């Protein structure tokens, strides 16, 4: 049982770490704000709970487990909210998604029709 738990925890940590790095690379390489939001959203909403689950499986039964669960719930509640809020605020500010071949100029400029 312990071996399976430790194997499961390692799998979670590995997948979580991989998703973190791909999210980070996406944050750098994506051409437009909205695609970056998507990349960052993956890190926050999927990688963070996976990593915290991996941590949870490695701890003994104690108060710390409840705290990790609290952090997990909090992160799951606030990070998608913050991402959504930022995307909506950007849309409100006038930025439009970059569509290939349609908009001239760099992504991030306000379009002519609000």
């Amino acid at each position, binding site marked *: 049982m312990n071996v399976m738990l430790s194997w499961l925890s390692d799998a979670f940590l590995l997948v979580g770490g991989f998703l973190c790095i791909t999210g980070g690379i996406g944050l750098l390489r994506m051409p437009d704000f909205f695609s970056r939001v998507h990349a960052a959203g993956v890190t926050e909403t999927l990688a963070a709970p996976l990593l915290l689950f991996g941590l949870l499986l490695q701890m003994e039964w104690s108060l710390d487990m409840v705290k990790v669960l609290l952090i997990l719930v909090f992160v799951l509640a606030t990070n998608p*909210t913050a991402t959504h*809020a930022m995307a909506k605020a950007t849309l409100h500010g006038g930025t439009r998604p970059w569509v290939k071949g349609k908009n001239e100029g760099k992504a991030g400029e306000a379009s002519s029709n609000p």
Partner: protein
Amino acid sequence: MLIAIAAIRLTDLFAVVMLFGVYSLLTAALFMNLDAVDVAFTEAAVGAGVTTVLLLSGLRLTKRWESRPQRSPILPLLVVGITGAALLYAIMDAPLMGDPSAPVHQHVSPRYIEQGPIEVGMPNMVTAVLASYRGYDTFGETVVIFTAGLAVMLLLGIPNNPRPRPGVSAIGDQIVVKAVARALIPLILLYALYVQFHGDFGAGGGFQAGVIFATGFVLYDLVFGDGSTHAVVPPAWLHRLAALGVLIYGGVGVVSLLFDKAFLDYTALASDPVGGQHLGVLLVELGVGITVFSVVLSIFYAFSGRSRES
């Protein structure tokens, strides 16, 4: 350090404020690495939370782009360089960090470490030193915080009716943020109370708890519009609360005086000395928490209620 250099070189003050938040967060991680949990707590709460909000509300009142400096920076650079070199030269004489033969580790620290749990009876040694052994210094700190709030009130004042915001705010139609904030604010306040009363056993204490409590109200104000918090916590109450916190702290000291002991000697508060210490630390941290909360919130009121006179 790279962040600090970038913060100096960038002229967009908005980016600089965000970089300060990132910097404070890295410093908190560094403090955790040095095993100073209470300091990391305070740094995270104050530096990354409240200071970012206050700097942003101050930035709204001034220009966003830094203007060119009028004079050449050679003379200030020289002064800073000489002072820095003198300080570095002085540091080289000091003992290395963690050196067991340093003078500070010979007399004072062993006494606190050995006698602390016996005299004060508290697992968290930082709170024991802060609130009991060095209680007078902490009283000074609380009065300093109160004076800072007083100075901001005298200089800026809180606008009585915050002007209605022109235009529609982005927060206005963000239902998700509003719903989540409504659910989260009670939890934040509950966490602040946990930090306040758990300061005896783990990391925490009055300063951090006051700041977190104020952060909950700041979040309410940010999400639901300027001035909505004025209906919940009126500014007049904040002034009284700030004074009340300092009064509680000083009052504990005076009560000790009335029992023929020294000022802020907590053993006078109960029949058995350790119980007296517990009660004294509890009351004192409560005073600190109340003062910090009211001062932080009133400074936020003073900054956020104003708009730029153009």
